[in-house]
């Protein structure tokens, strides 16, 4: 679905005369491969290059070196720009800055309008995607009246209306409250499960990553760890090096293990922790 080969990108800063002042390598030798239908998470601290990578996946930025392929099309192929963007939709951080029109349903219809979809089909698509993100009852409302989480769901619907094969969520929850955060992540999960859309979630909240199929950890422009969430979170100390935190239960289990409690590595949810902890207690005859 999405493949990068030795992808590298330089941010070039120029002075007023256009001379190169400094070159910052934001991405360096990235090789990733995302399969159709996967839920992929990209983790990284601020400045690790994760957003820059996201912008390469739908041809907003062009690689300095290497190649990016989306659904078999190379992103540098200018003639197929719309095809690439149609297949790999993107949702940004700030919900206010990506809703373009004044009524929810009109905004969701904006993408299909640009693609030249016939009027009748636009209406069908808008209704269907608003239903799938649970915003159908707000279709006639002004986006200004919605909460952050609702706006972000409308933004996701706007992308889904273009029938993409893949959606890239670039820190979609960074500006939301905990309730909105849950709404958005649940929506993304559901789209992935029910509609089979490939989801690439870029985030620095560990809790959002636990349900992913594959996790890529990035640090200073490089992919430094790849694996399932369990594999990644088993390496708590390494994650800390990359200025990342693990979910609280995982950290707790890790610390207890260091103190000699026999718990497995890579515990992801409170339920798992409870089960493992009970087992550990039983093994020691009820006392730790």
């Amino acid at each position, binding site marked *: 679905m999405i493949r990068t080969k030795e992808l590298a990108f330089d941010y070039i800063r120029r002075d007023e005369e256009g001379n190169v002042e400094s070159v910052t390598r934001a991405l360096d030798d990235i090789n990733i491969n995302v399969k159709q239908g996967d839920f992929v998470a990209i983790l990284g601290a601020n400045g690790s290059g994760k957003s820059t990578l996201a912008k390469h996946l739908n041809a907003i930025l062009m690689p300095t070196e290497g190649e990016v392929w989306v659904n078999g099309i190379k992103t540098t192929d200018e003639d197929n720009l719309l095809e690439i963007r149609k297949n790999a939709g993107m949702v940004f951080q700030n919900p206010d800055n990506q809703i373009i029109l004044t009524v929810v349903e*009109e905004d969701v219809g904006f993408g299909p309008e640009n693609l030249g979809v016939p009027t009748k089909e636009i209406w069908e698509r808008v209704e269907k995607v608003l239903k799938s993100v649970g915003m159908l009852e707000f279709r006639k409302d002004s986006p*200004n*009246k919605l909460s952050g989480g609702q706006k972000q769901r409308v933004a996701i619907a706007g992308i889904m209306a273009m029938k993409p094969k893949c959606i890239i969520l670039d820190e979609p929850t960074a500006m939301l409250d905990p309730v909105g955060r849950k709404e958005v992540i649940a929506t993304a999960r559901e789209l992935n499960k029910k509609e089979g859309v490939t989801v690439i979630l870029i985030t620095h909240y560990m809790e959002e990553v636990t349900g992913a199929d594959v996790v890529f950890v990035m640090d200073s422009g490089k992919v430094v760890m790849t694996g399932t969430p369990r594999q990644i979170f088993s390496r708590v100390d390494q994650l800390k090096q990359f200025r990342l935190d693990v979910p609280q239960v995982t950290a707790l289990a890790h610390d207890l293990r260091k103190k000699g409690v026999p718990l497995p590595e890579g515990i992801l949810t409170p339920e798992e922790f409870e089960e493992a902890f009970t087992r550990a207690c039983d093994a020691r005859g009820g006392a730790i």
Partner: protein
Amino acid sequence: MIRDITLGQYYPENSIIHRLDPRVKIVGTLVYLVSLFLFKSFWGYIPTMIFLFSCIHLSKVPFKHIVKGLKAVVMLLMFTLICNIIFTRGEVPLFEWKFIRIYPEGLRTAGFMGIRLTLLITGSSLMTFTTTPTQLTDGLERLFAPLKLFKVPVHEVAMMMSIALRFIPVLLEETDKIMKAQQARGADFEEGNIFQRAKAMVPILVPLFISSFRRAGDLAMAMEVRCYHGGEGRTRMKPLKYKGRDFIAYGVQLLYLAALILVRIFLG
């Protein structure tokens, strides 16, 4: 709350006027405005008033609501009236006090102008009461579409207008936030003379401008991501299509214009 502000003065109602195609309403308003300047005698006000009041009646917008809208222009209206009364010269003054001389001609022009202005404002606000901003920009885009032949970027201008409308409440909220942030650090916007107060606005405007540019950049990217590439090859979710009632409305407008031309010819 600032976010509750509905833009423009759209009055939601389900009437025949609301359902008319925005192009009909824009053209109708133009016809009406022109018609107000066609005649010079009071007779002309009979057909214009009949036309306006039947439109208001059909639109189901309460009359009170429309009068409320007039409040904003009361000052302008008074100014015109007073100027007309004082500065129109005639032959026999009705009233004289120092340099002020009031002639019957002055009273007549003032009355004539006063009614004309009131009707003008009521008529054009009726359009904004019954048409949403989106419909208005859509209507304008279609009406001016022929200008594309002369390379006027009609679609782009209409898109800019609708984006501006979408962002006015967002920017208002942002201004509010910035003001509060500045007040929290001791800025004073309420005291001092007009120049001092204008000067105090600078620390609000600068951050507002910067954040609008940032917003514009983000928005442009969001539009690109959704495959926006100008008006070419674009379909519409809500295309404007003339229906039977729209042609009838055009007919009514023609009749109205004809009636006023007759008034002009026979009654002056």
